[in-house]
């Protein structure tokens, strides 16, 4: 098991540095606005001026999580579905509009692949392993699996997270690229995990990604059966699909009601499930992350507080 020692999120709900966020969720509005702290209290002005929202969120959340665990990270693993869109759009606009032989370096540097984990490492002064995973809406799951493997290899304190930002151009791509009626939003969640229990009682039991998952119920039951569990034993579901029939006595959170369309939503789903379990005596929570291209992500959380 991989214990969650600290977790923080930022999105269109007021969740940053809040507890029991499962009780504070707000439905996504027609004009979702990112709720942020004053980034200047976390990031030096000289660095802040270059950072787009996705990087500001990532660095701020990473610093808050590191402060909570009070030790540097042995590894940093981040997922993002679409990456640094603000900088990518800016860079592409410069290519098409500016006449000249040279292009602005900042937008190029920050539209490249490993920007998020790399910038977090730079800002924290962390020289250990860092990686940014990009796998559509399963990017967080991939980053989490990487983080869990780092724990298996001996890392004691691993930062795992996911971040995605919305730009107006995304709405022009619907429905040809994104088969979604919901709004695009900006969201990020970061957590510190470790194989050591310490004071934490909420653990990630397993994370699985499945391509071409035809029947959610079949895949989910098979995933749970590996731990001797069935759907009826899951106390809390955080999901983005109506395809799975959940038990009548379970707590159900539809994450897209809060986040709209965001390819890092499963990371925030972990935060919701974490806070639900932490504030209760319930034992299991399941995150079900389904996408229109038949990808399926499953993350199982256990409350170790009262059920050893």
């Amino acid at each position, binding site marked *: 098991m991989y214990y969650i020692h600290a977790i923080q999120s930022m999105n269109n709900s007021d969740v940053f540095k809040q507890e029991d966020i499962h009780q504070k969720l707000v439905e996504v509005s027609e004009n979702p606005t990112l709720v942020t702290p004053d980034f200047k209290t976390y990031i030096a002005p000289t660095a802040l*001026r270059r950072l787009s929202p996705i990087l500001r969120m990532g660095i701020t959340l990473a610093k808050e999580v590191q402060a909570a665990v009070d030790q540097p990270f042995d590894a940093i693993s981040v997922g993002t579905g679409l990456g640094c869109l603000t900088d990518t759009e800016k860079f592409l606009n410069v290519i098409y509009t*500016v006449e000249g*032989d*040279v*292009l602005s*370096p900042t937008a190029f540097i920050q539209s490249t692949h490993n920007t998020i984990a790399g910038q977090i490492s730079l800002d924290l002064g962390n020289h250990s392993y860092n990686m940014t995973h990009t796998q559509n809406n399963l990017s967080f799951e991939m980053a989490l699996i990487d983080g869990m493997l780092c724990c298996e290899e001996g890392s004691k304190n691993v930062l795992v997270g996911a971040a995605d930002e919305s730009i107006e151009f995304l709405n022009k791509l619907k429905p040809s690229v994104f088969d979604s009626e919901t709004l695009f939003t900006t969201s990020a969640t970061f957590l510190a995990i470790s194989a050591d229990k310490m004071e934490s009682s909420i653990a990630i039991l397993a994370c699985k990604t499945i391509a071409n998952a035809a029947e959610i119920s079949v895949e989910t039951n098979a995933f749970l059966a590996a731990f001797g569990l069935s759907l009826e034993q899951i106390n809390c579901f955080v999901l983005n699909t109506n395809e799975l029939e959940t038990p009548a006595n379970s707590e159900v959170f539809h994450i897209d009601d809060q986040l709209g369309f965001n390819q890092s939503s499963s990371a925030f789903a972990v935060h919701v499930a974490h806070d639900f379990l932490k504030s209760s005596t319930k034992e299991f929570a399941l995150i079900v992350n389904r996408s229109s291209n038949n990808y399926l992500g499953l993350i199982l959380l256990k409350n170790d507080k009262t059920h050893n």
Partner: protein
Amino acid sequence: MSELKENLKAQIIEQLNLEDLTPSDIKNEAPLFGDEGLGLDSIDALEFIVLLDVNYGIKISDPSDAREIFHSIDSLASFIESQK
């Protein structure tokens, strides 16, 4: 020359995202780089090269000249004038 300097200040603020500054905050003779001035760094120097190319059609042919040219608003303006 004073109009050129004011334009340069506005362009630098926009290009380098110095959103907390106004042109009047940048002194003509003050160093742009290092702790004593605006605190700009090597990436900003690259942005200056782009700014000169795009806005004034000037290329820095010898990078070793950049330190002197980019020292202050005064030195930047003098260099641009000398290239006309």
